[in-house]
Each structure stands twice: as C-alpha cells, then as structure tokens.
C-alpha cells in the first residue's frame, strides 16, 4: 500500500505547466510591474486560476491507480544515482494543489480590491505568485530535497510578504522572527534527509518509504523528530509558534492565504506525506499527537485573551492546526487532512471577512473599538457568522465533520487524553470565536469612545499594532462599502465553508475515503467504548456550553448595555499569564537569544581571533613557506629540472627493481 506514493513511471507534462504558471506570473509581475500597473493583479489571478483549472483537469490522472501505483508522475532531472527529481500528483498532493490554487486564486482576486492604491501593487502580486509557485514545489515534489527547496522558498515568500510594508518596524521584526524560527525547522528537515540518505541512498519518497520497516527504531525516531521540528516550525506548533501571531503584520490577504489556508499547513502535509514512517514508530506518533493536542489547547486559551481581530484569528489558526497535527500524529490521516481542507475555506473566509471590516474601518483592528457593525456591515456580518458557525463545528457546517473525524480518531488510535483535549478545545473554540463575533457586531459602535475608557493602556501588550494595514488611505469615506471584487471571493468561499464537510459524511463509504483509497497506511484501530455519534453529541454539547458562556458574557442585554465598562474591566483584569502569552516569547528570549548572544560573544571575542584566526594564520604562514620552497626548486634552469626528473625516475626504478625481484 505505502509504496503507492512512488507514482507511475509514465510522464505527465501537464504537471510542469501546473507547477510553473505561477512562477511565470511572478516573473512577469516583477519584471513588467511598472508597465502592468493595475493589470498585474488580474494577470497574477489569471495564472493561479489557470493552475487551478489544470489541477481540475488532472483529477483523473492524480487519482488513478495503475499497476499498484497511485497518481501521476513526471520526471524532471536524473542526477547522480539516488537523486532523481520529479513531480508527483497523488490524491494527497492533489488536495493541497486544489486548495493552494483554488483558494489562492480567490485571495488573489480579493487582493486586487484590498491592495488597490498601494504603491507596490505589482510587487505584492509578484510575491503572491511566487508564494504559490513555492508552495506547489513543496507539495508536488516527489523527493525530500525538492520538498525542502519548496519548504525554504515558502519561508522566503512568507518573509517577503510579512515584511511587505517594510517601512513599519514591527512588520520587519515580525518577518525576521518568522524567518529565523522557520530556519530552525529547515535544519531539522535537513537533518532528517541526511539520515534518510545515509540509510537508503536515495532522496525519493518511494525509496524512503519502501524501507520504512528496515530502519533501526532509534534512527527512525530521529528521522521523524527532525521532520517534525520542521513541521512544528512551519505549522506554528508549541514551542515554535510565537512567530505566527506576529506574522499578522502582513497585509490581510497574506494572512488568509499563507498564515491560515496553505503555508502553515505544510507541517500537516509533511506528516501525512511521511505517514509510512510515522505509522511504524509509536513514539513519534505519541510525540506529534501530544504536541498537536497541546497546541490546540494553548492556541484556544490564548485566543480567548486577544483583542486584535487578526490575532484572535491567528491563535485560532494555531489551535486548528494543532487539531490537524494531532490527527495526522496519532494516525487519523484522513481526518487530519480533512480538517486542513475545511479549515482552508472557513479560515480564509474569516480572514477575508476581517479584512472587509478592517478595510471599512480604516485599519482599525481592535475589536474593543468596533461593536454594532452588524447593521453597518451586514455583508461582513454574514461572512463572519458563517465562518464562526463553521469553525465552531455547528452540525451541518464543514468543521463539524472534519473535527469530529480527528477527535474520534484519537480515541480509535488509543489516546483518550487527546480525546479529552480535543473536546475541551472545541468548547473553547466556540467561546472565543463567538466572543469575537459578539464584541464586533453586536451592541453599539465604540469607535468614538476614548481608548483608555476601553482599557487600552499598553497597545503593545494588548497586541494592538501601533498602526494597522496602511493600504487603503481613504479617510473621507469612513465606512465605505468594499468593491464587489472583495465581496465576490468571500461569497464564493461561503459555499465550501458550509458544504465541504459533507464530503466526509458516511465513514468508509464517504467520497473522502474513496478519494484517499490507497494513500495512507491502514493501522489497526480499536473499537472505542464511545461511538462516533456519541462523540459528536459530546463535542456539540461542549460547543453549546462555550457558546452559552460567550453569549452570557458578551451578548446578553446587560452585557451589551454595559459594554464599555465590561470590556474595560476585562482588559484591566486580564491575568498576566495570558496577556504575556504564557511567557513563551520571554522564555525563548532568555533561553535561546541570550545564550546565543553569549555564545556569539565568546566566539567573537575569544575563539575566533585566538583559536581559528591563529590556526589559519599559522597554516597560511607554513603554506607560504612551502610555496617559497617550491619556487626555489623552480629555478628555470634546464639542468635543475632534469635533475629533479632523474631523481624521481631513480625512486621509481628502485621500487620496481625491488617489487619485480620478489
């Protein structure tokens, strides 16, 4: 089963076009930006859309199973033995390609409206297209090195886009932080690749997975650990999650595409891709499942304590990816990738919806200064409402199905603690998402209230950026309605946000299970004491509790009448543990940054000048001395050369005389 991922040996050139079209867009937008002007957005959207069309056309090829191999394969380059590079489109890759190009095209369209008037309009689309290309490289690669190249390139694109408004110091700092933490992950993956190549002498997925049973157990655990460090950094898992909330400094469409729908789920992809490795190492499964559950819970708790609308969504993203990682970690692969699929829609929708609000309120991001927007921005309200209902797991909405697959999967694979964490997190999710919805849309508008009355004392502690998205500078039309170009993509996203989950309905007979037939290893599952239906009921009960608490605190009549004072008291009384985000940033600063600075000081002041430079200096001196010696032999005199030659010849002759005389 597992070596299906090798793909067919045949060629499928369409894959190359699918893969390279966004790169073409990036080059065109970058090279001809001044000439393209506003057309850059349409060009970029069209090329990503074309990739999406090609992905749809490749459906049959990507899901076919010929002679026991799954999907379509296209060789690119045969390097030295074991280092073959190619593209592989199997159901797993196809799913990601659909989301990257489909949701990507919609977000590109939205950006045409959102970034309208920005001085670097074409540059933005060049970066966005480059990101799509990098992400496609990551998911289409049929080997670890190609994956790592894509992995690095998406990190680079993310760096460019978080720091897109490079005149904001906070954006530059956030971009740097994201990049550095992601490099930690890259090193982990590189370490894993070294181990794999040392064992199987190949970088191909097929070779590495076919040998899954033959690795020594500690080696396999180290490989999984290295891969997971990369996955954790990219997917913002504890303790490498601190960059994700800061990454919200980028334009909102970037947050929607990169930091919600696609790039941050690369870790889920990596583990799902390497399922054959994980499924034979229980320790690695335990580790990844636990970290995923921890992240889900922690993200949800922190989401309850944020005031910045994008940061709430960022912690929510972290929490939801925690779910996915937990799912693929314990072995519920189909559930993990299902939640990726539904999350991509409703989270993109939530981000784009929040973009509608931010856009309309001239860059206000603090929900305390919103309120009563349901009447002023009815469209945004509908969008956010559907998104919130979806993420909470309301029966019938998409996350209801995908989240339950994961939660039930933890029990099936024998992790009752993670089961409990999953249910608890579902309740917390309902609480903080409804809190966001109620505070933003109900009551009366608080934009004119003095910030200090709302408890906004320390903007940096409250997570409030000193200045928000500076893109639309339209002060006259304060509550102007967004253009259709922004409304349409969000409207389209509503459909899958509600209905994508129905694909997963029906257990083993669902379209979802058919789509992934033969993709993942089938582990032994236990029949849990609690049935799937009962699990759904428990989760939904927990969601209702969370929703009720949120309603009581933020939507009741008393709360709405007294909103300003209540928000103020909540802000002021926020526990230090929460407002400092569990001190993760401080801990990383103390443990890593300080110690790195100390080490840097040591190497800079002591080791480098005295040990390394000294050695190099001595080596240089002796080498130059040897060079001079050589030169003194090189007199230019023929007789001297002949003498050297004869000397060498004499040595040869003595050796051969002795060797032949034995």
């Amino acid at each position, binding site marked *: 089963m597992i070596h299906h991922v090798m793909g067919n040996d045949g060629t499928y050139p369409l894959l190359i076009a699918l893969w390279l079209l966004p790169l073409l867009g990036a080059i065109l937008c970058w090279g001809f930006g001044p000439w393209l002007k506003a057309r850059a957005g349409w060009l970029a959207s069209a090329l990503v859309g074309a990739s999406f069309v090609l992905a749809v056309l490749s459906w049959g090829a990507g899901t076919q199973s010929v002679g026991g191999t799954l999907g379509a394969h296209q060789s690119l380059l045969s390097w030295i033995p074991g280092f073959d590079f190619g593209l592989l489109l199997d159901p797993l890759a196809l799913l990601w390609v659909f989301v990257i190009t489909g949701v990507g095209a919609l977000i590109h369209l939205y950006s045409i409206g959102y970034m309208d008037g920005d001085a670097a309009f074409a540059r933005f689309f060049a970066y966005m297209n480059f990101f799509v290309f990098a992400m496609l490289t990551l998911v289409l690669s049929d080997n670890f090195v190609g994956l790592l190249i894509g992995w690095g390139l998406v990190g680079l694109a993310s760096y460019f886009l978080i720091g897109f408004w490079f005149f904001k110091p906070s954006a530059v700092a956030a971009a740097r932080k994201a990049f550095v933490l992601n490099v930690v992950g890259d090193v982990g993956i590189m370490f894993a690749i070294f181990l794999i190549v040392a064992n199987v002498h190949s970088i191909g997925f097929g070779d590495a997975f076919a040998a899954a049973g033959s690795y020594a157990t500690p080696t396999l655990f180290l490989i999984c650990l290295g891969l997971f460090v990369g996955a954790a950094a990219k997917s913002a898992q504890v303790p490498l999650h601190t960059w994700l909330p800061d990454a919200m400094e980028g334009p909102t469409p970037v947050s929607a595409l990169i930091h919600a729908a696609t790039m941050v789920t690369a870790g889920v992809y990596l583990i799902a891709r390497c399922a054959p490795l994980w499924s034979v190492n229980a320790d690695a499964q335990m580790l990844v499942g636990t970290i995923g559950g921890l992240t889900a819970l922690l993200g949800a708790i922190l989401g309850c304590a944020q005031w910045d609308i994008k940061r709430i969504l960022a912690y929510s993203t972290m929490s939801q990816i925690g779910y996915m990682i937990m799912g693929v970690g314990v072995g519920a692969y189909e559930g993990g990738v299902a939640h990726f699929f539904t999350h991509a829609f409703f989270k993109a929708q939530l981000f784009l919806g929040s973009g509608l609000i931010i856009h309309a309120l001239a860059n206000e991001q603090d929900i305390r200064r919103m309120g009563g927007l349901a009447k002023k921005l009815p469209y945004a309200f509908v969008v956010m409402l559907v998104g919130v209902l979806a993420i909470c797991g309301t029966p019938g909405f998409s996350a209801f199905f995908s989240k339950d697959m994961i939660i039930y999967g933890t029990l099936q694979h024998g992790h009752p603690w993670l089961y409990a964490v999953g249910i608890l997190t579902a309740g917390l999710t309902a609480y903080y998402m409804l809190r966001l919805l109620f505070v933003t849309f109900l009551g009366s508008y608080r934009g004119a209230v003095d910030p200090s009355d709302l408890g906004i004392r320390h903007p940096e502690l409250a997570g409030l950026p000193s200045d928000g998205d500076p893109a639309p500078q339209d002060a006259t039309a304060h509550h102007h309605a967004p253009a259709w170009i922004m409304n349409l993509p969000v409207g389209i996203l509503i459909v899958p946000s509600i209905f994508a989950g129905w694909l997963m309905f029906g257990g083993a007979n669902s379209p979802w299970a058919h789509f992934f037939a033969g993709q993942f290893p089938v582990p032994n599952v236990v029949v849990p004491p609690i049935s799937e239906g009962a699990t759904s009921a428990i989760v939904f009960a927990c969601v209702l509790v969370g929703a009720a608490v949120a309603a009581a605190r933020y939507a009741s009549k008393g709360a709405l009448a007294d909103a300003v004072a209540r928000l103020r008291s909540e802000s002021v009384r926020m526990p230090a543990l929460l407002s400092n985000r569990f001190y993760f940033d401080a801990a990383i600063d103390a443990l890593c940054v300080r110690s790195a600075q100390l080490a840097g000081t040591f190497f800079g002041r002591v080791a480098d000048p005295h040990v390394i430079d000294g050695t190099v200096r001595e080596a240089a001196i002796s080498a*130059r001395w040897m060079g001079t010696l050589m030169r003194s032999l090189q007199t230019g005199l023929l007789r001297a050369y002949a003498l050297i*030659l004869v000397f*060498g010849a004499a040595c040869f002759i003595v050796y051969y005389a002795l060797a032949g005389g034995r």
Partner: protein
Amino acid sequence: MILNPFGTADWMAIAPIVALAIASLLVLLADLVARPAISRYGAVAIGLLGTAAAAVLAAMQYGHVYAAFFGGFVTGGFTTVFEEIVAIALAGSLALYATLGDPKRIGGTVALMLWGSCGAMLMAGAANLMTIFLGLELLSLALYCLCGMVDRRGARESALKYLILSSTASGFLLFGMALLFGASGSVLLADLARPQLAANPLFWMGSGLFLIGLAFKMSLVPFHAWAPDVYEGAPLPVTAYMSVATKAATLAVFARVLYAALPAGTASHVMLPVWIVAGISMIAGNVGMLAQHDLKRLLAYSGIAQVGYILTAMAGGSALGLRYAIYYLVAYTFMNLGAFAVATAISGEHEEGARLVSYAGLARRRPWLAAAMTFFMLALAGMPPTAGFLGKILILATSADSGYAWLGGLLVAGTAISLYAYAKVVRAMYLPQSGDHHVADLRPIAPLAWISVTLCLIGVIAMTFYPLTPSNVLPLLR
C-alpha cells in the same frame, strides 16, 4: 594477393583522425595559395569544421567496436569519450586563437593543432605500445612547435625546454616499452594482462619506466618541473590546448593500462608509485599555486593537482571510479578552458590576461566576465554548487570505498590549500586595489571569446545538473 596496408583496418575506426588530418592539409593549402585573401578566421573556420566533423564521427563510433592497425587502435565508448574531450579542447583553443593569434603564423599554427589532435585521438584509442608511442610523439612534436610559434624569447625557451625534457621522458617510456615487449613478446596491451607476467622482473621494470614517461606527460610531481615554465612561455591558446588535450590523452592511455593491461592482482603493487606521486602532486601542485603571479603558471600548478584528483578516482580500479574520473575530467575541461577563455578575452597582443595584475578591478570594468571567471575559479577550487564540487565529492566517496582513503585525505588537504590561490584571483577582481588603473582602457572583446566563455559556462553548469556518467565505458575498453 594484394596486401592490405591497413591489415584488418576498418576505416571507420580512424575516421575522426582522418578528418582532422584532411582539415590540417586544407588549412596549409589555403594558407599557401590564398594567404592574403583568407583572414585569420578562414583558417580557424576550416579547423573548426574539421573538428566538428571529427567530433561527429567519433560520436557515431560510440558503442561500436572498430579496430585498425592490427588491433593497435580500437574504438568504443571509452575512446569516444576521450576523443570528444580532445575535440572540445581543440575547438576551444582554435576559437581563442582566432581572437589572439599572430596573422602571419595562423595557417601553420592551426595545422599543427589539428595534427597534435590527431596524435591525441590516436592515444585515446591506442591498444598497443606502438600506437601509444606514435600518438604521443605526434602530439608532442606538434606541441614543441606550437610553443615556439610566437616572436618572444620566452616562447622559444619554453619550446626548447619542453623538447629536451620531453625527449628524456620519451626515452624512459620507449625503454620501458622495449622491456615490456621483451617480457610479453607482444606489443598488444591486452597481452600484458597475462598472469605469468606477474612473476617476471622485466615486466616490473618495464612498467616502471613506462609509467615514468606517462607521469611526465601528466606532469606529476616530481616530473612536473617543465609544466609551469612551458605553460608560461607558450601563447595563451596553446597553453589552453596543452593543459587539456595532453592530460586527457595521457590519462586515456593510463586508464587503459590500469584497467585492461595488468595481470590480475598486480594493479595495487604496479601502480603504487603512481598513487604516491599523485598524492604528492595534490599537495605540491596546490602549494605551488600560492606564490604565482602569472595566470598560466597558476593554472599549470592547478593542473598538476587536478590530475592528482582524477588519478585518485581511478586508484581503486573500480568501474565507478573510472566513471567519476571521466566525469571530473570533462568538468575540468570546461572550467579550465573557461578560465583561459576569460584570460584571452581581456588580452591584447601582449597577453595581458596572463598576468594576475590585469585582473585588478575587473569586476567594475567587465562585471559579467569577472562573474564568469569567479565561477570558473570556484569550480576549479571545488566549491559547491559547481561541477567541481560534485566531482570531488564523488571521487572522495569512491576513494573511501576502494581503500584509498589516504588519497582522499590528501585531496581534501590539497583543496583546502588551493582555496587561497583561487580566491586570490577573485579577490583581485572584486576588491579595490592600488593597481586598479593598470588596464584601465576597455578594449573591445572579440565575439568568439564571448562565445567561448559562454559555452564553457554552459558546459560547467550542465555538468552540475546532468552528470555525464557513461555507464557502459568499461565494457568497451579494449
């Protein structure tokens, strides 16, 4: 019955050589009858056409076994690969010569290069002692003249030194061949593999003297002393030609002896002195580079070390080792020719490009040329991600596998030393220095020089991504 002068000769076997010989006669003829009319490009064009014909004919032989001269010359994958390397070196040097050559001597020079290449190709396919000697002397005679084909005292000195020292080495070679013939009663290399020879002292002494001759041609330390002086004195395009074609042809002979002409089980003992001098060359060659101020001398020492690397690949006598050796040789051909092409591009009639001082500030005057030169230097030094790096990694791997890790260690040590010397060229181009004004004038660069530099760049880059590993070389080595 009419005796066929070629014995069992198959004309197809020597077709590339014949093509070169015809081209050289045409060049001489054109030079004689139409001298004022043909420009320097005319002679070079005929030469390039002949080279192209030879390359195509050699490629057509790939995978086919033809034999000529009573089995003294055979073709197949191995021969083709080395013939193609010679053709690349010839084409590159001819193109460079067209931009730089002395118009009065153009016909003779082109004809001599073509003749020398006949010899080199003969060595590539030589399967008996006599064809080896014939090819070697044909190549050497052409080179003696080529070295002196310029009105410069250094050039004549270079030619004379080369003639005398090379003749000495040829003496060793010939004497060794005589002993080998005495031991085996045959001039065929294949007959040297007979097991009873292992106990014959004549075989051992003959091998030793024979290998001295080859070591000289490969300029291994301590038989290297001629190389820097001869390289320095010869005209730039000739040096470029010599640095690649001589090495390739001699390595072809050496590989054929190592892989096909030794009694079983004797290789490690017979070849031990060669591995030792290869190891010495990797260190001494790179050390010798450090103190040079002349690009041609620098590349001469570089070549001494590079041959050591290639021999390291072959040391285990494994099929994989031969593939890696060929891979590295082809990569070296492109990067070395590339460096000479850059040097030619910035040279006038005084060969300014040969002196390192001319490179000061080149990055500002000729940024693309400087970038190309940097790339070639990094490739020669074996820095990632160039083909030079890949080749060294492969060689290191095979040397460790075949029990010659000590040669691999010397390779690493030599590489470390060489970095400084290669970096010196790069530093001169990019760092502002007082000698910056030296070649301040921007003389136009001949299109052919640009083309050569570009093609060499493409060659090195292509070698990085598409490692040439002709898997069927060894079975065709006869």
